[in-house]
């Protein structure tokens, strides 16, 4: 009975909310602004509409929803004090790292205070002998890898954007290297988090940085992927890896999507430790060619990379070349030198921007399903058919080694019908993935666009458990309301 009541209590207001055009950002009271000034300093509080709008959107198609104010704390204590003030005044809070998310995670659906942590930008600790580092939330992945360059170490998780590492923790991000080095889930050792009541915890204990642990509940991984709904991450301890001795990159075109994807599944099933195996359909290759000045054949393509010793790399690439040939690949093109390799992977990382350039002025709606690799060929083929049926501009690019691929649907934000078609397409794709034991989101997160798919994915009992957790950490529902879990917003 209680759970039904909670469900109704939660759903009804949300249904009402959907019918209002909640565009106006809630203005913050003067007394609150004064309190914020006293915590972070006047310079670090902005009420300017332009700044608020910048913080009310990310790289997704979701409509800009500005917060009432943006603050820039410069220490964990300040974050904690800001959170306490917001809690006292029942103001929603939205943590903001680099604003490069793809699911509208930072849009302040109910206004409130945007907590921009980018000024906390120090690499606090690097322990090369232990292969770990601790960073503040303003440190992005490129900044960290640049800092580490003389140590021979790197942090390999590489989503397309130069994202904040703590933001990557919040969305459980992944990248082209996940097939070899794992995603954020496998690479976060400890987090310092400011909870919705202002208290500060270290999920694995203060200063702890062990490669494994079985001490108590795994709080670290509770927060990885929580998308700012359970607290504000103010520190992350991450695993580092040795920069590969030797790398070799190759590009391989195929006569069909099936052949390309079959090749990638066979490579994984043969146990070859490929470092990157990325699928691009011909639409994506075209976009990349145009944007990055390349000249690849317009066909379903795999971009591959091998890491290891010279002999290891040669062995792996020979074996993969053989598998590709067996699948009628039309050529295995090696990127000869460092500059060429760099150009290739930059083009891959710029894929979304390349796609946006296909239709300037448009926004992107990206899908992010991940399925067991044996089901990938059928899912991608069916998806490509759907793209035709729904008449969408949608290049496909994917981390096929993980069974994860993206449709970057490029749409005109003013074309309501196109958006409607894209959403329906996305829903069908999400359900297609769920039907084969997959997930609706491999690495981008639920954000605000996939709430109903999450319910279908984890089921009623799963959602109820998640809601219990949310209720425990954030009884007032102030932390990033409207994201991840349905039915949470300010009363």
């Amino acid at each position, binding site marked *: 009975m209680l759970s039904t009541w909670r469900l109704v209590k939660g759903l009804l207001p949300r249904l009402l909310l959907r019918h209002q055009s909640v565009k106006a950002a809630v203005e913050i009271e003067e007394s609150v602004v004064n309190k914020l000034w006293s915590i972070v300093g006047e310079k670090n509080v902005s009420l300017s509409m332009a700044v608020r709008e910048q913080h009310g959107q990310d790289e997704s198609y979701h409509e800009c929803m500005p917060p009432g104010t943006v603050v820039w704390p410069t220490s964990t204590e300040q974050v904690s004090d800001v959170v306490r003030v917001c809690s006292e005044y029942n103001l929603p809070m939205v943590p903001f790292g680099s604003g490069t998310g793809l699911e509208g995670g930072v849009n302040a659906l109910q206004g409130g205070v945007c907590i921009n942590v980018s000024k906390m930008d120090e690499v606090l600790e690097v322990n090369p002998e232990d292969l770990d580092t601790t960073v503040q939330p303003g440190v992005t992945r490129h*900044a960290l890898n*640049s*800092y580490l360059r*003389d*140590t*021979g170490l790197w942090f390999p998780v590489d989503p397309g954007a130069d994202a904040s590492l703590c933001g990557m923790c919040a969305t459980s991000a992944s990248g082209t290297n996940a097939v070899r080095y794992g995603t954020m889930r496998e690479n976060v050792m400890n987090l310092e988090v400011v909870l919705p009541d202002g208290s500060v915890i270290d999920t694995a204990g203060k200063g702890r940085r062990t490669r494994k642990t079985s001490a108590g509940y795994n709080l670290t991984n509770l927060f990885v992927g929580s998308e700012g709904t359970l607290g504000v991450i103010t520190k992350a301890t991450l695993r580092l890896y*040795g920069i590969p*001795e030797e790398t070799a990159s190759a590009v391989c075109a195929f006569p069909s999507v099936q052949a390309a994807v079959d090749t990638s599944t066979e490579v994984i099933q043969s146990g070859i430790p490929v470092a990157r195996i990325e699928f691009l359909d011909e639409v994506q290759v075209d976009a990349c060619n145009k944007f990055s000045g390349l000249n690849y054949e317009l066909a379903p393509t795999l971009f591959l990379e091998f890491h290891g010793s010279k002999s290891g790399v040669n062995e792996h690439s020979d074996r993969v070349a053989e598998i590709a040939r067996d699948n009628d690949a039309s050529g295995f093109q090696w990127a000869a030198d*460092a500059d060429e390799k760099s150009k290739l992977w930059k083009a891959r990382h710029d894929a979304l921007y390349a796609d946006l350039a296909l239709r300037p002025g448009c926004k992107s709606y990206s899908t992010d399903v991940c399925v067991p690799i044996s089901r990938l060929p059928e899912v991608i083929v069916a998806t490509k058919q759907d793209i035709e049926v729904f008449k969408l501009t949608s290049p496909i690019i994917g981390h096929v080694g993980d069974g994860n691929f993206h449709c970057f649907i490029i749409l005109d934000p003013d074309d309501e019908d196109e958006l409607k078609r894209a959403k329906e397409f996305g829903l069908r794709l999400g359900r297609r993935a769920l039907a084969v034991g997959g997930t609706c989101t491999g690495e981008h997160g639920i954000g605000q666009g996939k709430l109903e798919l999450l319910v279908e994915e984890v089921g009623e009992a799963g959602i109820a458990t998640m809601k219990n957790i949310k209720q425990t950490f954030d009884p007032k529902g102030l932390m990033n309301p409207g994201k991840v879990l349905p039915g949470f917003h300010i009363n």
Partner: protein
Amino acid sequence: RIIAMAVRVLVGCKRVIDYAVKIRVKPDRTGVETQNVKHSMNPFDEIAIEEAIRLKEKKVAEEIVAVSCGPEKCQETLRTALAMGADRAVHVQVDQQQYESLQPLAVAKLLSKVVEKEKINLVVLGKQAIDDDCNQTGQMTAALLGWPQATFASKITLVDDKLEVVREIDGGLETIQVNMPAVVTADLRLNEPRYATLPNIMKAKKKPMEKLTPSDLGVDITPHYDVISVEDPPQREAGTKVDSVDDLVAKLKDKGVL
């Protein structure tokens, strides 16, 4: 095409504050804060080392000697150079206090002496250091040695014992040919430097590092100019918004711009 001479390369590596650090001026305005601040190899020197290593990989260069002038910590920078692929290192020891006033002319003199000692016939330096932005050491070294200089290089090729260098200049690109031995300074687009990998960092620990002093080389490093003060750039002031073109024109006239 037979290359008659064995090319022996000297590369300069300066230890500077890392390019990503937010620089803070010391309260007494005598310089910038360097304590507990991340330092690394000058980025243009990384490019210089990378180019030398590529010449060695193409079997054009026979040996690469990395040189750094400064206090003990410069050895870290030299180890990075060795890890990237330099063969030997030379550390010209200058104590911390003298280092703070070590200037390009003194460095050029020190490098020239090392060049003679090591029988170098190609010097590759970064075009400038990102801390002082002097852009002088390469040019002065060439003058002291009486060698030709090819500065702001964005491409270097050895053709029949001469160097063909593409230089980045204001008007575009200029290709020159210089006789060897020569001094080249590296510009940004010359190459993208490799990262030092763990096995190479391990190997670098065993590569030879020679320690010398300026007096061993017979060089007087007394500075020739003094830095009087170092200040922050002026704080940016708020602008004003205008409502129309007429308004803009009026304001520009007020300021005497129109």
